[in-house]
């Protein structure tokens, strides 16, 4: 059980609340120095909410002390002289009121004037609270109102002047207007939160009647997280930069293989439309000041080309930093943070690959890495419901930003969890199945042969029947490779075809899907090829690299494997030779067959 994961969306309230004390014990083991005093003035039971707020703040590096009003004494505590609260000297005051705290709703027979009086009296009760709290000279976070679960007027409840929903919605609008002009008043939008959770789950009648909890335990973590993110935003601790992968994150498919016309982006397909929506959301974040960066395993020029797509909402210039190369992502993300000159703790990294997420999360623990999964439809929720980019002011937060930059001068370099990349590969428990072509895989092999562009030494294309012929002939060596690791099965991702001629094996085709690059799979394939060549008593292997504008990544494959340069042909192909007797098995990170 990783604490960091527990306190992230999606929240499992049963674990958070049940194991609260154990989680707290873990969190306070860390060296936490920042302190915060929060006064909670409640209109219902606040004990569990306080516990959860404490967990989220501990997780953000704050030791919190609380002032908790007596049950339902939010009004009295706020407006009357309160020496205890004055002595406490809060950094933040949070007023936890809900629809249960409405003093009086208009009766059905009330005249328009009476309705207005009742409304104004309710509003002024809260205005009185806010004015009275000014003397504490600190931010005030005020809940707006959730809707009750039941409404005796039915749909009319939301537009009849006597309706409770109408009354509450009007109050909410007026709370918003007050917060526009009162710079120390911040709204905790439980009206939205309860709707997004669902009123049926937000309310728990049992808990209300037995213990006067106005919000269900299921909803408390989301509520606590919401409050904490407002506090962090006030303190200038929200995230600043969104780092994005490209393939299967900003568009569907792999640009290096599928090409600009092959990636899924745009209204032509439902998947393409979903990626478009994600891009549009990111553009909105950018427009309100979130810095964007790209971190992708790709060829720089090819990656850049993706943003030339006619439907792309994001353009290359939207990204302050653009890292498309084959280095480990944790190194690139460190470079991004340095370039933009912000701390790693201001970065949020989104990638559809579980492996990349794990590398970054382990190597750079202060980077936020939500486990977005690989379904594009979920990505926005993971960004939004973790409240990474919560903001309390859209234009003028320069003062806070200065404080923020000053803090980051003390940034320390992250200590690597793994000594080196090799150790990381070992930790993946990779297993490969590398065997001669067999009928059940002919379709997939043909597909790979025809779409792989980047890791492909000759880029020869074959039809299905041609692959079948190769599989059946004795003078061909053929291998497919499948790779699985502790995160799951990557499927069939590599193909190797060699033709045997006079004790030589000439590599006709060798390709690999980009999703398993830098996993040593090429060494595993080569090992099996050598084994087969030895069994056939061959002398050498001839490799030919045919340059295309997409396969630069394998230009040094043969020399990396220890092949000797023979010659360059007129058409630019390079011929390499490997003496089988020279083969030394590399320390392997993959278990074969």
């Amino acid at each position, binding site marked *: 059980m990783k604490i960091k994961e527990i306190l992230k969306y999606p929240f499992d309230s049963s674990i958070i609340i049940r194991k609260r004390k154990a989680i707290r014990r873990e969190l306070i083991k860390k060296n936490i120095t920042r302190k915060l005093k929060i006064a909670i003035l409640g209109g219902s039971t606040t004990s569990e909410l306080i516990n959860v707020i404490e967990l989220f703040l501990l997780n953000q590096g704050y030791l919190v002390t609380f002032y908790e009003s007596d049950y339902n004494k939010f009004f009295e505590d706020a407006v009357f002289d309160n020496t205890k609260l004055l002595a406490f000297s809060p950094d933040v005051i949070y007023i936890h009121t809900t629809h249960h705290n409405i003093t009086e709703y208009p009766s059905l027979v009330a005249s328009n004037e009476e309705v207005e009086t009742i409304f104004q009296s309710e509003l002024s009760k809260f205005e009185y609270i806010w004015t009275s709290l000014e003397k504490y000279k600190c931010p005030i976070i005020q809940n707006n109102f959730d809707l009750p679960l039941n409404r005796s007027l039915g749909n009319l409840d939301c537009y009849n002047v006597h309706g409770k929903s109408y009354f509450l919605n009007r109050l909410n609008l007026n709370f918003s207007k007050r917060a526009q002009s009162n710079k120390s008043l911040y709204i905790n939008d439980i009206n939205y939160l309860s709707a997004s959770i669902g009123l049926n789950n937000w309310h728990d009648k049992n808990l209300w009647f037995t*213990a006067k909890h106005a919000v269900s335990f299921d909803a408390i973590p989301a509520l606590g997280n919401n409050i904490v993110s407002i506090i962090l935003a006030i303190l200038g601790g929200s995230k600043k930069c969104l780092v994005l992968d490209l393939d299967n994150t900003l568009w569907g498919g792999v640009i290096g293989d599928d090409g600009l016309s092959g990636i899924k982006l745009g209204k032509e397909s439902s998947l393409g439309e979903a990626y478009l929506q994600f891009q549009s959301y990111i553009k909105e974040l950018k427009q309100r000041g979130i810095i964007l960066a790209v971190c992708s395993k790709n060829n720089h020029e090819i990656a850049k080309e993706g943003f030339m797509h006619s439907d792309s909402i994001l353009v290359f210039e939207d990204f302050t930093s653009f890292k498309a190369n084959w280095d480990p992502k944790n190194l690139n993300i460190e470079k991004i943070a340095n370039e933009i000159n912000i701390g790693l703790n201001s970065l949020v990294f989104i990638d559809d690959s579980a492996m990349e997420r794990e590398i970054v999360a382990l190597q750079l623990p202060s980077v936020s890495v939500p486990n977005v999964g690989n379904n594009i439809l979920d990505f926005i929720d993971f960004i939004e419901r973790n409240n990474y980019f919560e903001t309390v002011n859209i234009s003028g937060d320069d003062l806070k930003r200065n404080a923020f930059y000053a803090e980051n001068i003390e940034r320390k370099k992250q200590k690597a969890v793994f000594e080196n990349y090799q150790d990381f590969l070992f930790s993946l428990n990779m297993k490969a199945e590398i065997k001669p072509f067999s009928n059940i895989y002919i379709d997939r092999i043909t597909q790979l042969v025809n779409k792989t562009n980047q890791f492909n030494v000759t880029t020869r294309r074959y039809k299905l029947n041609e692959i079948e012929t190769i599989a059946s002939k004795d003078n061909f060596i053929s291998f497919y490779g499948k790779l699985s690791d502790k995160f799951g099965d990557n499927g069939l991702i590599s193909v190797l075809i060699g033709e045997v001629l006079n004790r030589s094996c000439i590599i006709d085709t060798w390709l690999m899907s980009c999703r398993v690059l830098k996993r040593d799979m090429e060494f595993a394939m080569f090992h099996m090829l050598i084994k087969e060549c030895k069994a056939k008593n061959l002398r050498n292997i001839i490799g030919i690299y045919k340059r295309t504008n997409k396969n630069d990544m394998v230009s040094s494959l043969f020399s990396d494997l220890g092949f000797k340069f023979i010659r360059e042909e007129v058409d630019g192909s390079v011929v390499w030779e490997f003496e089988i007797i020279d083969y030394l098995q590399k320390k392997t990170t993959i278990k074969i067959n």
Partner: protein
Amino acid sequence: MTRAELFEKVQEIFRDIFDDENLIIKESTNSNDIDDWDSLNHINLVVAIESEVKIKFNLEEVSTLKDVGAMLDLILLKK
């Protein structure tokens, strides 16, 4: 679920809520035996049991859960 299996689950819940890995409960264990077992933690126990064994107690039932034995009786009745 047998009473013994249920007992194990309830014991785990008690250990989590009261943050004591070695806590041993008995059928007769009640709020006098555990210092932290106040009304707030009583609600935490009830909610944790509800979510663990997928039942809902009704209003009167919550206040009848005086000791572990009473909890087991009622859960088994409702399962």
